[in-house]
């Protein structure tokens, strides 16, 4: 005797997982109440109907493929990043020293065979920008905004404190050209010469 409820016995009979004890119980139940066999038959019919119904709908699943992998695109940058990139590129270009060594800093976008213009655009090869390297046409410090305290801690030698602050200076730079980061047809970032609008009144 498996002592399972009738619904479990019927389920196991349908799933073909009924043990000998389950079948014995089902036989005994059918002897007491012949309607058990009718319920078993109905459950079998329901199972067949449901399987057909599910199969018919699931055929649609076979038509659904994964979407094609997309080429990696640059994440959409906030608007101010365009300005920052433009300024950085302009500084890099100005600081790259290509005036002295045009061949060394030639743009990779330029035809190898064409002569480098005397003051053509250049991309920083190492991407490092050091203020010491800047070769601006002119650079005036106009003022300084209030500094922002970022971190303070006792100095390592025990004397005084080490303070990390952010200083924001206001400068007027003069560069020959400004570039923005644009995308080519493959989604790669490329510099594009750009004529900026007037941002503010002259200081």
């Amino acid at each position: 005797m498996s002592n399972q409820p009738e619904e479990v016995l019927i389920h196991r009979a349908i799933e073909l997982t009924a043990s000998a004890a389950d079948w014995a119980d089902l036989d005994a139940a059918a002897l007491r109440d012949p309607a058990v066999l009718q319920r078993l038959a109905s459950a079998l019919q329901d199972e067949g109907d449901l399987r057909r119904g599910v199969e018919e709908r699931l055929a649609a699943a076979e038509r659904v493929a994964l979407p094609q992998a997309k080429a990696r695109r640059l994440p959409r940058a906030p608007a101010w990043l365009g300005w920052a990139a433009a300024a950085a590129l302009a500084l890099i270009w100005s600081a790259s020293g290509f005036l002295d060594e045009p061949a060394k800093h030639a743009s990779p976008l330029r035809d190898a065979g064409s002569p480098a213009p005397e003051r053509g655009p250049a991309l920083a090869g190492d991407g490092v920008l050091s203020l010491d390297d800047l070769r601006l046409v002119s650079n005036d410090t106009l003022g300084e905004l209030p500094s922002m305290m970022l971190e303070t801690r006792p100095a390592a030698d025990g004397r005084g404190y080490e303070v990390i602050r952010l200083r924001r200076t206001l400068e007027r730079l003069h560069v020959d050209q400004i570039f923005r980061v644009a995308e080519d047809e493959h989604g790669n970032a490329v510099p594009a010469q750009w004529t900026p609008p007037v941002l503010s009144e002259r200081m």
Partner: protein
Amino acid sequence: MTDADQVELARRAAAGERAALELLWRLHRRFAAAVLLAHLPRRADLEDLLQEVAVSLCEHIGELRQPERFLPWLRSIALNRARSSARRESLRAHAAASLDALPAEPAGPAAGNEDATRAAAARALELAGRLDPDYGEPLIMKCVRGLSQRQIATALGLSEAAVETRLARARRLLRRELEQEEAVLPSRRVAAPRTSAADRAEA
């Protein structure tokens, strides 16, 4: 394919291997479709929703932390899609109810004109979908070829014994629903094909 193979496949897919993801999807898209069927608003398009699941899978597979729990993870994606669809359907139904002049939907083919077997299958599936999802979902999953009771248990976070109990009860509930529908709406019972002598004479 063994369970260990599938876990390895899920691990490789999560690591970014496209071929592994493709194979994983082909193996389990019917499972995802079954989850949608169990929770689907009746009017929603299974194929469209499954496509949404595929897109979501591609976008989030890198976040799969436990490859051995891929099925429950995929189920949660399908569930979210089904629930989103239910919300959309609800809004649409609300909007439609407020429009007096909404044209009536074209009537589907009468049951009597359908193949009796197909109609019975569709009716069984519809009623299974109306069951409490605790019962309807495993019952529909059980109809997915190749999906074992153990895999259903894993996907639902239940023991195998609990799944068996739910399946047994679900069968009984489905039978009750079918009997109630036949009692209330005898006209919806599928008519036999019109092949009587009178029909032939009429033709």
